[in-house]
């Protein structure tokens, strides 16, 4: 499965177009991470726990999108976009979406 943010894959022709595929996940930080982050907020700097959490969620969202594309018989997802929204009480929704296609 080829994943790209480009509209097409350089040097390859799109044979079939399957339309929109998406994957999303909502994650909340757990309390241990939250307490550490609270402490870190006094001295500032990177909140590593959050960075990892969101990065994991992003991978999962992308994975779900890929599964959906695979189910359609696609072998690539083009024009991928990512989005993050901070929703209530320290939870974040991560969404990945793109267009499933079959290339040569």
């Amino acid at each position, binding site marked *: 499965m080829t994943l*790209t*943010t480009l509209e097409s*894959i350089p040097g390859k022709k799109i044979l079939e177009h399957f339309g929109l595929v998406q994957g999303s996940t909502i994650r909340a930080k757990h309390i241990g991470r939250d307490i550490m982050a609270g402490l870190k907020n006094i001295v*500032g700097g990177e909140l*590593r726990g959050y960075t990892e959490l969101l990065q994991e969620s992003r991978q999962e969202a992308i994975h779900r999108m890929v599964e959906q594309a695979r189910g359609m018989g696609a072998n690539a997802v083009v024009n991928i976009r*990512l989005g993050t929204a901070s929703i209530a009480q320290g939870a974040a929704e991560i969404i990945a979406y793109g267009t499933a296609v079959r290339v040569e």
Partner: protein
Amino acid sequence: MLAQWFFTALALVLGVLWSQWRWKFYDRGQQQREARTRIVRLHTVGPGERQDVELAGQLLTASIVLAPDFIQMLLAGFQKIFGGRVTAYDGVLRRARTEALLRLKEQALALGSRQIFRLRFETTMIENSPGNKRGVVAVEFVAYGTALFGSESAH
């Protein structure tokens, strides 16, 4: 009473000095990495008809959650009274953006790519609960794009 004011002022001054020293240190690290990854070229557009890049490429995502320190939050609070440029948050966002880009470029270099196309940014504020100013306030910065492989001389 006077002693109390004196110590508060002293703590504040020390805090500001510490904060500046701390971030200067952070910036220096970023500058060194910037120099090492300068070879990677970033494009917000696709490769178009270019012939010097090949292969399918690979999706790269890099992110960071960066929090301002206590002193910066205090300063930002003051600055918000007068409006205008909020320099305290300015720095946090700039550093987060730089860091996300550096990580992206380092990933590309590790894969042997020197070109990233269709680069996109994404910023999210992280608060304990939306609209509530207490608790953790940080900014998440995401940079993502497609690394393509091709000739090294490409611009």
